[in-house]
């Protein structure tokens, strides 16, 4: 392979390693079929016990509760969006194994750059219910200061980069972040989550290619969940998913069953080891399904059948993992039920509390545009303050403070 050439630069030859043939053949789709790693089948049985990753009971239960919590949070927040308490929500339902399973294979020092459907990773990292709520209610306790829509979490302490809505932008950013970690001598990598839809953006191409060429220790984790809002994968790409692109970039690649926690965990663990050891990127494509609507603004019945949803319901990643835990006698149903009802209450209580907390004071509107506000922002603020003081009733969120 040309990029592996050990020759001196002046002997560089971009043909070295290219074989020659003499027949006019087009390479067709299907030249390679990339298989999907499954370690736990749909009945919760190990497919290849030797390959089952080494997960201790404690970790296994943390994975389970993180998935369960994520789903409870989703349910409750969809409800509160319907009640008009928050403006927007976006659920992880169906993809919990892909997210929690991969997050569990990381170190806490690893940076997570997510798309928006990866709240399970935050849960696993220890983000608290009240933190979720403060973000979603845009209140002044949110360290992101309430400036973005609900679900745009970010937490420096947990190495979870604040989410940004434009799709795909985090992909080359992850390459740069990982490069910086490597240059700073950190024992850490960056994981970058994105959907199969976002992988159509030009930034995907730039990010993967740069990571490969510049030897960035990053994991690119694609959740191929079948849809980008209403757009099915067959209108998104014509190749063999996203995994087949890894080859084109010279990026090591693996496709996993995204509803199988064990496969996701094992693949991510290996990817992390290699990324760190060899300073290189790895692409993981997790085949999964968005059981929920795209977001609370969406109604999937306009573009997919109940039947299809029902089929995927059968592959529920939480149920599958529970069967495995049960087989290992690690599943304590009453304890789990207690955990869940406790979590439900906690969520409700935190929600009620967070919605009472005011938004940031008016002064904050000009903070963080720059490191310190320049003259024009100070001027705009002081005009605004005078204005708000004149019409306090019209700006109830900020006037009384």
């Amino acid at each position: 392979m040309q990029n592996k050439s050990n020759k001196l630069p002046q002997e560089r030859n971009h043909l070295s390693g290219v074989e020659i043939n003499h027949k006019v053949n087009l390479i067709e789709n299907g030249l390679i079929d990339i298989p999907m790693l499954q370690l736990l089948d749909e009945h919760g049985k190990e497919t290849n016990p030797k390959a089952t990753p080494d997960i201790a009971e404690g970790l296994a239960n943390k994975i389970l509760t993180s998935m369960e919590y994520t789903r409870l949070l989703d349910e409750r927040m969809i409800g509160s969006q319907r009640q008009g308490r928050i403006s927007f929500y976006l659920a992880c339902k169906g993809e919990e194994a892909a997210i929690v399973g991969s997050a569990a294979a990381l170190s806490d020092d690893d940076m997570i750059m997510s798309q928006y459907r990866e709240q399970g990773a935050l849960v696993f990292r220890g983000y608290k219910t009240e933190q979720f709520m403060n973000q979603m209610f845009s209140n002044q306790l949110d360290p992101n200061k309430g400036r973005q829509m609900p679900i745009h979490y970010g937490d420096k302490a947990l190495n979870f980069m604040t989410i940004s809505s434009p799709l795909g932008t985090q992909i080359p950013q992850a390459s740069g972040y990982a490069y910086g970690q490597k240059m700073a001598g950190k024992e850490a990598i960056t994981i970058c989550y994105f959907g199969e839809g976002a992988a159509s953006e030009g930034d995907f191409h730039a990010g993967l290619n740069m990571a490969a060429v510049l030897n960035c220790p990053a994991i690119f984790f694609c959740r191929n969940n079948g849809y980008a809002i209403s757009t099915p994968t067959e209108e998104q790409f014509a190749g063999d998913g996203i995994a087949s692109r890894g080859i084109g970039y010279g990026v090591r690649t693996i496709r996993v069953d995204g509803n199988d926690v064990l496969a996701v965990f094992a693949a991510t663990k290996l990817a992390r080891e290699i990324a760190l050891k060899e300073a290189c990127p790895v692409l993981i494509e997790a085949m999964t399904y968005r059981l929920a609507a795209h977001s609370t603004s969406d109604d999937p019945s306009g573009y997919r059948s109940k039947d299809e949803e029902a089929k995927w319901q059968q592959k529920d990643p939480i149920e599958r993992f529970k069967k495995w835990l049960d087989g290992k006698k690690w599943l304590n149903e009453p304890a789990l039920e207690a955990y869940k009802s406790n979590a439900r209450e906690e969520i409700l209580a935190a929600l009620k509390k967070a919605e009472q907390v005011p938004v940031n004071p008016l002064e904050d509107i000009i903070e963080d545009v720059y490191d310190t506000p320049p003259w024009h922002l100070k001027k705009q603020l002081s005009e605004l303050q005078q204005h708000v003081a004149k019409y306090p009733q019209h700006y109830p969120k900020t006037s009384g403070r």
Partner: protein
Amino acid sequence: MAKMNLLQAINSALISSMEQDERVMVFGEDVGHFGGVFRATSNLQEKFGKGRCFNTPLTEQGIIGFANGLAAQGSVPIAEIQFGDYIFPAFDQIVNETAKWRYRSGGQFSCGTLTIRTPYGGGIAGGHYHSQSPEAFFAHIPGMKVVIPRNPYQAKGLLLSSVRDDNPVLFMEPKKIYRASVGEVPETDYELLLGKADVVKEGTDITLLAWGAQVEVVEKAAMMAEKDSISCEIIDLQSILPWDVETVCESVYKTNRLLINHEAPLTGGFASEIAATIQQECFLYLEAPIARVCGLDTPYPLAHEKEYMPDHLKTYEAIKRTLDY
């Protein structure tokens, strides 16, 4: 005539143009079977087939690149960018390609048939990335036209003109009033002139200039000002590029005062171009500085959306300040 909201008016214009010219094709993210996230393209795929109304992969630079080529070929692409906030990956294709295509080829080739539709603007709790008003970026691109309707009647007539105009047009739709703005719209085909402002209301003391959803805001401010016996002339610019200097100048010759309102951040917003031109053209007529009531020079902040917005109260105060100057 039929009662339509702004979205229905757009849908009606799309149907009209697709019926009338089979070279017209509509595409973008989720615009196909689903009809777009706002449903502006509802039923088009059903009516005109998948060849003429289709989903694209999720790539704005690709959508506009594809649209440029399609336009150069002679088809009539109407490309949707799902939110104005997501048009920036296509900025290179627009600045360097769409807008320069005709000029660089000496008129041999052009993207004149292209129309780009995109919803824009705030007031919907959308935060940084579902609220921006990026018109000023496009107003600095020679070769582009930029058009913004304020109600269903305009939306249909201006969109039909944009599609048929032999220049690339960025058609920006004020999504805040997509459903709220309802009015009588002819079911038949009609066009409204591009490059012309619309005098919404005549007055004598000050000219208030706005576009899109902000026209309502200045109307509200004008009503407050009328109570103080200030007579406001209200102009809806409609076309941002090229814009109707003549109508604005004529108004300012009469009122001697000008206020411009837009949602986009103040610095470098399109109000600056208007102010710079009008102070030049109407220098001896102006009795007070031209006032700009605009968004703050910050990203669009969710928690402080109300405070950020150049609302009727800020506009009213600026009217009074201008009259008292």
